[in-house]
């Protein structure tokens, strides 16, 4: 079981990294999504694996429970990365709409004359 | 626990397994998308149905606890399955079937996939 989880994390990580190394924003977004899957499982696994011992205290019997702390951490991490992804998606969309393509790279600074200060005013 | 309970529960479980498998099998066996649509929307429904029945029976007969929230899942699937199928079908039709390949709608308006609803200006886009 442990190896299954570990290798899955590895696979997700590798895929995510490959995708964030692409040139288009959308691929990068996909990559980051995979990476956050990967890291969530990784963080979860840091509490070690347990089958059918969810940390829901049972009123009726003495039980062993899986480590609840990493689960809580992963929950927080999931929520945060959701917020981040949302912002990322919007920024990517904004960058695309403001320019002609959704490339992730910047063009050469030197050519650019447009400076902070002459931007859209309210 | 008495045998008949075991048999009953097991039977439903096995039944569910079989139908589930068949439904998914249809997904790869059948030839075109519309045909495949039939498999899941039915076989799986019964499959999951009997699984849920099995669960209810199990908890009631074996565990002695009344459990009927499985009904909720059944209800939910029955509510949603047709909608899902309907959407998937339309998704397929819009992309792959031309209006003339379908039977006429037998009313003044064509199928909603191709034709605007009454009232909206027809010459849109």
């Amino acid at each position: 079981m442990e190896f299954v989880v570990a290798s899955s994390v590895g696979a997700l990580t590798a895929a995510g990294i490959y995708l964030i190394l692409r040139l288009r924003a959308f691929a990068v977004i996909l990559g980051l999504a995979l990476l956050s899957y990967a890291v969530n499982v990784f963080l979860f696994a840091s509490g070690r694996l347990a089958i059918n011992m969810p940390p829901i205290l049972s009123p009726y019997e003495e039980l062993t429970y899986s480590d609840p702390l990493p689960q809580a951490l992963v929950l927080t991490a999931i929520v945060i990365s959701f917020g981040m992804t949302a912002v990322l998606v919007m920024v990517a969309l904004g960058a695309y709409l403001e320019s002609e393509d959704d490339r992730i790279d910047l063009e050469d600074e030197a050519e650019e004359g447009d400076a902070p200060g002459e931007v859209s005013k309210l | 626990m008495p045998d008949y309970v075991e048999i009953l529960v097991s039977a439903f479980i096995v039944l569910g397994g079989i139908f589930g498998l068949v439904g998914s099998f249809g997904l790869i066996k059948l030839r075109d998308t519309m045909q495949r649509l039939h498999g899941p929307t039915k076989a799986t429904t019964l499959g999951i149905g009997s699984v849920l029945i099995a669960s209810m029976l199990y908890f009631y007969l074996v565990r002695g606890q009344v459990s009927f929230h499985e009904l909720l899942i059944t209800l939910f699937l029955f509510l949603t399955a047709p909608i899902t199928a309907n959407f998937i079908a339309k998704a397929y039709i819009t992309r792959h079937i031309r209006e003339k390949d379908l039977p006429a709608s037998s009313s003044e308006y064509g199928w909603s996939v191709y034709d605007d609803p009454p009232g909206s200006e027809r010459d849109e886009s």
Partner: protein
Amino acid sequence: MNHWIIAPVILPALLAPIIGFVMRHDIPLARIASLAGTGALLAIAIGLFVSAGGDPQVYYLGDWPAPFGIVLVLDKLSALMVLLTAVLAMIVLVHAVATGWDARGWHFHALFQFQLMGVVGAFLTGDVFNLFVFFEILLIASYGLMIHSGGRKRMRAGLQYVVINLAGSTLFLFALGVIYASTGTLNMADIAQRLQDVPEGEAALVRVAAMLLLVVFGLKAALFPVHFWLPATYSSAPAPVAALFAIMTKVGAYAIIRIHTLAFGPGVEATDGMISDWLFPAALVTIAVGAFGVLGARRLMPLIAFSVVGSMGTLMIAISAFEPTAMTAALYYLVHSTFAAAALFLLADLVISRRETDVLSLRPATVQNGLFAALFFAAAIGMAGMPPLSGFLGKLMVLDAMRAPGQMAWAWAAILIGSLITIVGFARAGSTLFWKPMAIKPEVAPDRDEAGSPGTGARTAPAGAAQIAPTMLSIAMLALLTGFAGPLTGYLSDTSEQVFDRSGYVSAVLDGGPVATHPEAKPGTPSDDAAEATEGSYAAPEDGEDN
């Protein structure tokens, strides 16, 4: 328990939503609230700074004993950083309001307050995962500020900023996973204590954790080779935001100072020397990158951004020694470089908004050319580390502290040559910006008085007192740092003493606070065998309640 410790986090946290969701259609009101809030934050910060004299003070959130709940720790270092943040924030905020930057987009003040909350929270927390959470808060707020008021270039640079930081956050989580997996705790003090005697077997994991964290914090601190994002970001951000970001790189530096002295610091044989061995060369290259960037810059904002990179290199060199004297120098230089960067960015905003471009090419002289030239000269001196301003003292202290035989020559060469290149770069930029233009309009070549005659082709109204004050204030801070270098350094050396006093920190956190209500897990004494740890005895309630 001193409830004021959490005040600097809660204040903006409660103020920001009100500004953002209630006052969002009323800029003047938002401005007042934001200024008032920042003022209050400053007051609180001063109060905490004063009260942080003695041992670390611990705030046990939720009244849970450490290491089981989250704690805030107020020691000299965190108090210093909070105060630094508050002062910088006040300066930047006044600039943003005076120049009207805050009105060029939505939610500036709410995001600004949230940003402060994140930064301050990061400085105060005593829990590694909570550190992550506040990193995220300050980051996501900074995304909003970074792309404030939009614009093509800014949006694309912003996208890069978001992406690189998301990657960084992911790495942070990986590191935290390794930490929990290897130590079974998240409380910094507890980690430090458990790492004191790492069984040789777990050293590998611990080392990996330390290294990954170094990369994570290095990314924030613009440390080579993970600094590449900074120039584009800072030079595309609204100038006041860039000025505020001067504290963000310091967050990374702070985290390294905190974690890599407390947890993986000197005396932990698992990670002994490893961090220093990698941090030092990276810092050297960072200085080079920054200096080259300054000399080679074609535009003003990147030039300043690269000078920031260079300054982080110097700072990191001092940190990498991981000994009190060098740490004192590092802290001094940290404070200095924050204000130097702020001064430059704020000034750049004033200049660029009048030159209408930050390209370092010949343009007609702007209104107040003389004044801007003088301010630029001062700020550049500060950043380049020329006397008489604090940059010089800071660099002297760093050089003086880098006495390890293996490192001395490298450190000195890097810092001194780096300074030279930086000076030359600033000199070129300055004379292009402020001197050459005098040649274009000979009839008004020498500006008789600093007020600037209308003949000098003023594009826009001259900057009023309120607009110039923040820049001058940040330069004044440099002057103060110089004048009161003695007393300040006295405080800072106490601070670095405390930073390296691991046992003091640990006992303050783990021995104080509410008593654990549960016998088999006392605060600070981790239950010794895993079976017991993952098992909780539990008394059945009268009736299982389902709703």
